[in-house]
């Protein structure tokens, strides 16, 4: 019987950790701009149009133009905003998003270096902890703006977090029980025979639905809800502060996709030699990101009571049932 904690057999040198964190930063800040333009182009295709194609070849320079525009915007602060909390909130969201990236495994330990930021023993709990802090960013931002739309958005964000984080945790619990570990690396290693999307299909679906709610993406983008709340928690933000929120949304999308890949799609497992592992993870993550965009192009925003009743009346019982059945099966076999 192994302990449900990760067995991080080796300690890495500090300089390796520093290099790895720099690499993770560089990679994510290279991927987020690409994601923004890819999302806009893919959304365009879904709506039978091209999307941005004016700036640079195929419109690929669009994020650069966006960034220049956002950075050079006037810094404006509403009079009602609370001085320190208001600028901190968007930074908090980006920080938690990037911090969560640290545990995503992109490959096995090769030549004494693990292809992940850090293999924390509590594994997925780290993800949930930082996911909750990310919602503090939305909550603080909405509340500290001192505007009614922001406040409504923040309230919705809080309610949404409570309704969906539980189902999300329970959905992952099935995979955790099958792997017998909380560490993401061990969970991926446990999937070398069969990816958990097959035995844990219900858990996968619940996780994806909860993941859409967690990232505030359509059809659960109620904290933003641009049709009713202007831009929800982001109403009073402009320039790069708004940009931070937008960036954090993409980072979170990436993280949720990464966790889904780790837990249900066998992480770095795939045909080909070992050095292909990170490529496989990236490919799988991008498949999920495409799914995020696809859903956004398809489904209308749900009503608020529908969101609540889906979370509490459908997902939570389903997730609990899934955990119970998995527990029984794991014990029996």
């Amino acid at each position: 019987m192994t302990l449900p904690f990760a067995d991080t057999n080796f300690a890495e040198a500090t300089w390796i950790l520093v290099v790895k964190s720099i690499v993770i930063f560089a990679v994510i800040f290279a991927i987020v701009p690409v994601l923004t333009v890819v999302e806009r182009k893919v959304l365009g295709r879904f709506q039978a149009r091209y999307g941005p194609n004016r700036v640079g070849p195929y419109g690929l320079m669009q994020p650069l133009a966006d960034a220049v525009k956002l950075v050079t915007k006037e810094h404006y602060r509403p009079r009602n905003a609370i001085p320190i909390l208001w600028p901190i909130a968007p930074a908090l969201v980006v920080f938690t998003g990037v911090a969560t990236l640290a545990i995503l495994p992109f490959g096995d330990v090769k030549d004494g270096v693990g292809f992940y930021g850090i293999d924390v023993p509590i594994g997925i709990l780290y993800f949930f902890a930082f996911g909750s802090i990310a919602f503090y960013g939305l909550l603080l931002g909405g509340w500290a703006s001192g505007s009614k739309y922001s406040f409504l958005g923040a309230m919705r964000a809080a309610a949404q977090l409570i309704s969906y984080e539980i189902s999300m945790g329970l959905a992952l619990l099935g995979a955790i029980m099958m792997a017998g570990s909380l560490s993401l690396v061990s969970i991926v290693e446990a999937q070398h025979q069969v990816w958990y999307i097959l035995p844990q299909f219900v858990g996968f679906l619940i996780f994806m639905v909860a993941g859409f709610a967690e990232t505030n993406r359509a059809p659960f983008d109620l904290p933003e809800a641009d049709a009713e709340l202007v831009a929800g928690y982001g109403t009073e933000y402009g320039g790069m502060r708004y940009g931070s929120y937008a960036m954090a949304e993409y980072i979170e999308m990436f993280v949720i996709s990464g966790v889904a890949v780790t837990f249900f799609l066998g992480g770095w497992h795939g045909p080909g030699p070992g050095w292909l592992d990170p490529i496989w993870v990236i490919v799988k993550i991008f498949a999920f990101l495409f799914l995020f965009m696809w859903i956004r192009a398809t489904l209308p925003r749900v009503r608020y009571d529908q969101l609540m009743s889906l979370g509490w009346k459908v997902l939570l019982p389903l997730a609990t049932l899934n955990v119970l059945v998995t527990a029984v099966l794991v014990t029996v076999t």
Partner: protein
Amino acid sequence: MNNSADSSSEAEVSSEFPYLEDESVVAVQRGPEPGGLGGAYRAFGETLRGLKTTFARIVEGPVTIQYPEEKTPVYPRFRGRHKLHRFEDTGLEKCVGCSLCAAACPADCIRVVAAENDPEDRVSAGERYAEIYEINLARCIFCGYCEVACPFDAITMGHEYEIADYNRDDLIFTKEMLLAEPLERTPLRREGE
């Protein structure tokens, strides 16, 4: 008396039923109840159907016309900017300066000043010609009445639709501008397109 009877019956009715009997009551239309497992299955199926619908748009490809590079083709009878015409064999102007177009114009945007033709050096085929022929395109409503009024088919509505300019004065088109061939031809829609 009538009043009191009415009010008493009203009170009677309202104690049981909140509406008057002759008042038309609109029943509220509601969607079907979500229902438990069947509802979830239905929602899931409809979601998949929606995903299929949107993905079909990707397969179809964009329908956008990349405007500055590509132009929307127009129908043959499209009424764009006017054109003045010459006879192809002699090169003389068809316009004889009769001002019928100016008279027909509801927006009053055509100005014609006629002059006698010099027999040595003819400008038009008729007795007179238009010395000044101006159309103020800022006022023109593109109704095509001038085209209908013209007895010599000297003025027709062309296909050009990119007439925007920075200055109102630049929108007054002179005879030379109206006689000249447009620099770029507007694509024409084919039959049945």
